[in-house]
């Protein structure tokens, strides 16, 4: 780790972001030194993305920033008034600060070749007129950049759709580095990538950062990633900076209850918890918080003083005084930080390790048997499923893990009947040997994205009543369904847009439960949720499983989630099952080389 020097290459002071609806970021100071990695951590609505957009003048229409931005670097010092609408961002973007976005599938233009897109960012010494004569030099520059991100030169002639996600993100990285920025801002740069690819891309960024002595601001919701990659961490909550310090200190010894609880929500990979710690309630809108601590309403340590004034960001002593000199700047906005730090694991009091899964009874009858399932999509060279066998016993929870392209989602869709396999059997041993629509009601699915899974035009009540009617059940059960998934009955009158992501996913679960299915298939059902919400939904699912005796088939890319939810796990790769068995055996002592690689790629 580089010890940060006091001379920041980027210093932002009193950065504020305001929209017509109210404040989004309410005053934040940020400094990054050359070679340093600063992680900004927070859940959706924390204002972390808006903060970095403000640093580049990329705020959407109707959103304004204020504050002062000082940049030092090879090209001389520069002071930018963020409130000035006439700011010339040309001097900042690209050459001083470059932005790398989350999704490599959308951040490149689909109709331009990769080489072209990288070349756009290369500054031309003789102005724009030097273009024609400079073509050869540009091509060499592109090849060099591609080499730096570990791609062969012929990628320049390819279109983004011809590349894998990891390769696209490398192309995007080469494009971001084209103008030689002093600082790279990476907004969730690996969230959309598979775990092994994630690891490669992060290693690559770290290497480039060292080689170029480049500062890095890493925006992430992933605390593990922040801890393993960042020198310093800033934790944001509801548009406020609640805690900052070195990564090891902030995440190892949180001084703010929010940081502590957020860290506890992250499901552990090594063992299963009976109940995952959660944070009750939800993140308030930054504008609704007036003269109080934004977290007070959800905080177990709150005292009356927390609700009368917003706590200032104050220096706290580092856990290890010897480090005080080197790290400095350990600050938190909490009146009760001393109490928070004395408690060993906040919110983990309830988090006792559970017995490793419910032991599957030998006599239990199989509910679902999948034999030799094969599926090849039209126009695809490789099969999506290549002879998959799978068995789920009644009452069991089975996880299918794998990366994109492993065929896990196709498997789920074949089980539910949304895809027709080319060969093989899906046998569902329903009590009555039901077929067709009756069978369809016995198996239900919950999708990944709760934003697109609900019809925005229907109220929650209508949506659930529709699902009940399809199963021949009375409308009066709507209230019961909502209670079942932990939502107030009054939500029946709301429309999806008035609900948060976690609430929508609860509605989607309620809808799947309406026909009283025996098997619930969850296709990445918690991947799009914030970590604290994910913990709530995972708890809900295990409660439902206990109460209703549900059998679950859980499709996920997240091994820690599989650890928490499943009794047995199947590891898929390239349309085949490479390893399967009890979750403790497979994740604790993996036999297949691929499972081992998956586990090794998770940031520790």
């Amino acid at each position, binding site marked *: 780790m580089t010890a940060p020097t006091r001379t920041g290459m980027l210093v932002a002071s009193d950065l504020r972001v305001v929209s017509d609806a109210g404040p989004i970021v309410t005053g934040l100071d940020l400094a990054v030194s050359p070679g340093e990695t600063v992680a900004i951590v927070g859940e959706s609505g924390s204002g972390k993305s808006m903060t970095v957009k403000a640093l580049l003048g990329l705020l959407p*229409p109707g959103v304004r920033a204020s504050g002062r931005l000082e940049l030092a670097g090879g090209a001389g010092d520069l002071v930018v008034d963020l409130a000035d609408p006439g700011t010339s961002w*040309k001097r900042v973007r690209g*050459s001083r600060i470059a*932005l790398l*976005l989350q999704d490599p599938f959308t951040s490149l*233009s*689909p109709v331009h070749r990769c080489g072209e897109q990288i070349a756009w*960012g290369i500054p031309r010494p003789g102005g724009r007129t030097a273009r024609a004569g400079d073509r050869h030099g540009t091509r060499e520059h592109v090849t060099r950049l591609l080499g730096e991100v570990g791609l062969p030169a012929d990628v320049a002639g390819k279109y983004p759709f011809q590349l894998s996600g990891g390769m696209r993100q490398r192309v995007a990285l080469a494009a*971001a580095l084209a103008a030689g920025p002093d600082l790279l801002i990476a907004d969730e740069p690996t969230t959309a990538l598979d775990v092994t690819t994630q690891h490669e891309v992060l290693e690559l960024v770290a290497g480039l950062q060292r080689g170029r002595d480049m500062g890095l601001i890493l925006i992430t919701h992933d605390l593990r990633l922040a801890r393993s990659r960042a020198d310093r961490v800033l934790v944001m909550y509801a548009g406020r900076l609640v805690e900052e310090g070195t990564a090891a200190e902030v995440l190892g010894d949180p001084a703010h209850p929010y940081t502590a609880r957020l860290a506890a929500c992250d499901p552990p990979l090594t063992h299963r918890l009976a109940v995952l710690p959660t944070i009750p309630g939800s993140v308030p809108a930054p504008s609704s918080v007036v003269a109080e601590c934004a977290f007070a309403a959800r905080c177990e340590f709150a005292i009356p003083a927390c609700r009368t004034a917003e706590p200032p960001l104050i220096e706290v002593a580092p856990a290890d005084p010897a480090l005080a000199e080197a790290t400095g700047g350990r600050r938190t906005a909490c009146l009760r930080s001393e109490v928070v730090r004395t408690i060993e694991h906040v919110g983990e009091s309830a988090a006792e390790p559970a017995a490793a899964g419910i032991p599957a009874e030998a006599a239990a009858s199989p509910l679902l048997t999948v034999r030799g399932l094969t599926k090849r999509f039209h126009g695809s060279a490789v099969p999506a499923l290549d002879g998959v066998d799978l068995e789920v016993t009644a009452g069991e929870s089975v996880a299918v893990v794998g990366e994109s392209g492993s065929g896990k989602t196709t498997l789920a869709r074949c089980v539910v009947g949304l895809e027709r396999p080319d060969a093989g059997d899906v046998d569902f041993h329903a009590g009555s040997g039901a077929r067709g629509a009756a069978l369809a009601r016995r198996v239900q699915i919950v999708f990944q994205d709760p934003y697109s899974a609900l019809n925005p035009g229907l109220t929650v009540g209508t949506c659930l009543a529709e699902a009940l009617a399809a199963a021949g059940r009375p409308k009066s059960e709507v209230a019961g369904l909502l209670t079942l998934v932990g939502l107030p009955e009054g939500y029946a009158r709301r429309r999806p847009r008035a609900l948060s992501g976690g609430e929508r996913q609860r509605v989607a679960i309620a809808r799947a439960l309406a026909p009283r299915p025996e098997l619930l298939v969850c296709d990445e059902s918690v991947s799009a949720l914030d970590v604290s919400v994910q913990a709530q939904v995972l708890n809900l699912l295990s409660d439902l499983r206990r109460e209703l005796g549900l059998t679950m088939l859980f499709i996920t890319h997240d091994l820690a989630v599989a650890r928490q939810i499943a009794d047995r796990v199947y590891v898929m790769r390239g349309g085949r099952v490479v390893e399967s068995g009890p979750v403790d055996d497979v994740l604790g002592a993996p036999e297949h080389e691929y499972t081992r690689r998956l586990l090794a790629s998770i940031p520790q």
Partner: protein
Amino acid sequence: MNRPVLAFALRRLGATLLLLLALSLLVFALMYLSPGDVARNMLGTRNVTPEALAEIRARYHLDEPFLTQYWLWVSQAVTGDFGTSIRTGGPVGPLMLSRTGITAATAGLAFLLSALVGIPVGIVAAVRRGRPLDRLLVGVSVVGVSAPGFAVGLLLLYVFALGLGWFPIYGTGDGFLDGLWHLVLPAVALALGLGAFVVKLTRAAVVRELDQDYVTFARGRGLPESAVLRIVLRNAAIPIVTSLGLMVAYLFGGTVLIEVTFALPGLGALMEESVLFKDVPVVQALTLVVAFVVSVTALVVDLSYLLIDPRVRARTVRTRAVRG
């Protein structure tokens, strides 16, 4: 890569020919679908004598089976011989040819006007989204889309020809410049609605692209706005080209009313006269020609996707590879 693309183009061309064949069958059947005796219908509003009817039957092979008649008609139509006009007694081909110039000029001018004005206006509105200029342009284009062409034509005539006297009221003029002069008002009347349509579609396409991540990414690494706009336009090209293709079909509907309004002796006016006179051979020929132009435009638009979007190109190649 090129062989599959060529194969796709040929297949698409084959499909267009099949479509035209089916359309020509429908067009030919028009004569039988209209009520009454075909021979009587073909005589139009003239006096009917048994001799005339017999002559018509013989000349048009009306006693032959339907498909034989169709074959005789269509095999002559592809050589440009669409038979004889009932109204004028002359051959339909040269009659249409003499009227084509004026329609082609009006429609072409209207097409150019609406594309050359509509696309830039749509881009400007999208870039200034939500600002007063955008509201104004969108407001004007709503009026443009909703105002019927002939009403706009009458208004233009009243203001610019009758009131201000800047443009001639009717006729075609002599020579190229004077001819163009006479076509300005009709073309503007025709272009207004179509242009507004192009504005709305272009604006929607560009707005959608401006919201994409790759725009934020391009700005975030310091590309100038002009470069960003170039990238966006390339991506918005498919919907824009599609809207231009659709416009060609609308042009023919609009041109009938406009030519009547401005008393221009073009194909539209010919269509109007022929329908009124029940001049079935002319109506058939005109319908077939319009169908031909519209299908060929659709073909060109489809093939242009291959040029614009590498993903479409790749999909074409892949589909071929799997089938082959």
